[in-house]
């Protein structure tokens, strides 16, 4: 379409409806086809890894909320596991059950958001997003009820969780998990058999299993490519080994599989929450740790299965009050490694759908 000597460069972002934050794609196009794609990131860079080197271990917990602001609980959990492994802190059983409950609630909320915006990118004008927001709101209400914050929860502590949930929490969460499967069925009816959505997402942005593994892709994207890999089962942390749940695995590795894997994971999360609530042990919700926590010199790498993938925290201690080095393995960033491979040669709408299906959170990409 265009003349060969004049590349048609389209800047998608930093302010664009589909970049979900300040994230920029510099796309070289030939008509509607993408010839080259380059990410320009860093608009939200706050250098948390540097900041964390001058805060105590407990003071760093709020930072983790603000990396992946759609999955604050999972980030809290990952960091606390790393700090506990570093300092050798034991966690009471009730706390680990509560952590599971909140992490899974957070996963449902995050997947609601991810799937909703993904459908939005595919062109459905906000309706599925609003439907999914309805459930997400209730989950955020539960968070607010428990820890006073909705988005940046700052709920987990080194050695447990900050508060025991109030008494109103249990009926509310029970009502929610009774309702959720029906809601997820509703989305399925609305979206999953929708011919337009299928035509838009099937065989778009395909990632083979070998490529996905080699490209460090984790989480729902990896599972959608057909690799049965979930840290909750492979390396059970907290008390995931005591619950009965399945890992949904896709077949092709296209955008549709990613969407479906996320939708199924929401169902599985409901199962986990139900079991955890049934066997929720009594006891303290927190181990008392010294406020002046000085772990022995050494290092620890702990990871959890966050909603977006393997969320790792690499913490190095030199015996001082603050981490010597604090590194976040951000799944949002690393899942973008193969974006170029997926998007080049596709058309612009396909690339947008592919980007939507990777479910990025810019706060986590840039940190």
């Amino acid at each position, binding site marked *: 379409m265009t003349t060969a000597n004049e590349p048609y460069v389209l800047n998608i972002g930093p302010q664009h409806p589909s970049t979900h934050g300040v994230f920029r794609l510099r796309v070289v196009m030939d008509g509607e086809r993408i010839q080259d794609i380059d990410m320009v*990131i860093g608009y939200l860079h706050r250098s948390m890894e*540097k900041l964390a*080197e*001058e805060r105590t271990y407990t003071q760093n917990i709020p930072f983790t909320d603000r990396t992946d602001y759609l999955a604050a609980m999972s980030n809290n959990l990952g960091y606390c596991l790393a700090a506990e*492994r570093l300092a050798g802190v034991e966690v009471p059983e009730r706390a680990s059950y509560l952590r599971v409950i909140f992490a899974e609630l957070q996963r449902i909320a995050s997947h609601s958001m991810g799937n909703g915006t993904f459908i939005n990118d595919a062109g459905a004008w906000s309706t599925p997003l609003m439907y999914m927001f309805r459930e997400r709101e209730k989950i955020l209400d539960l968070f607010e009820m428990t820890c006073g914050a909705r988005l940046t929860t700052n709920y987990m502590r080194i050695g447990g969780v900050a508060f025991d949930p109030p008494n109103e929490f249990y009926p509310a969460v029970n009502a929610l998990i009774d309702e959720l499967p029906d809601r997820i069925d509703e989305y399925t009816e609305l979206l999953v058999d929708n011919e337009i959505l299928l035509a838009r997402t099937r065989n778009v942005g395909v990632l083979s299993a070998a490529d996905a593994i080699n490209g460090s892709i984790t989480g729902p994207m990896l599972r959608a490519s057909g690799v049965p890999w979930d840290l909750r089962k*492979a390396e059970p942390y907290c008390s995931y080994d005591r619950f009965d749940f399945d890992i949904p695995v896709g077949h092709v590795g296209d955008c549709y599989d990613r969407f479906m894997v996320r939708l199924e994971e929401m169902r599985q999360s409901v199962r986990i929450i139900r079991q955890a609530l049934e066997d929720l042990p009594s006891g303290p919700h927190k181990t008392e740790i010294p406020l002046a926590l000085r772990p022995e010199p050494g290092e*620890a790498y702990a990871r959890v299965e966050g909603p977006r993938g393997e969320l790792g925290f690499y913490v190095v201690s030199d015996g001082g009050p*603050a981490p010597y*080095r604090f590194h976040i*393995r951000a799944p949002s960033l690393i899942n973008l490694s193969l974006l170029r491979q997926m998007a080049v040669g596709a058309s612009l709408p396909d690339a947008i759908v592919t980007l939507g299906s990777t479910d990025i959170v810019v706060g986590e990409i840039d940190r």
Partner: protein
Amino acid sequence: MPRGPRQLDGHEVARLLSAAVPGAVTVATDEWVEIQPGRVVDVMRWLHDDAEMDAAQLSNLCGVDRYDHFEIVYHLQSLDQNHQIVVKARLTDHEAASVQSCFPVYTGALLQEREVYDLMGIHFDGHPDLRRMFLWEGYPAFPLRKDFLQIVDHHPGLPHFPFETGKQER
């Protein structure tokens, strides 16, 4: 320090590794294996291809500034065997730190190595697209280095707890 729940013993890995890639291993502890920065690709390729090691995925890559040297820490993951291997590379030249890129083995290193280059200024030989990522091209410093913006009377890190007084650790 305790290893991760499914982390391999560094000595064991070092034994196999030094048999397969002679001269690559410098130090081994029960947590990690330290290798020559010039042999990264060889080591990674062997770890990746070996059926027993089966390090299929580069799970995490990050750099640590130890004042006089850098450490690059690789967390490698085997999905089929379900174990984790920690490999480190020590870069002694603090001024012009450089290490082989493991992109030829793991495409997942693309953005992680760029990030380390951007924030720590470590050069990865053989990386196809080594540019600044979060910071703009031409930014004068590398923030995650301990000597970032050498402010007078300022030491990196937290010297003492906020409520503690007087006691200077470092």
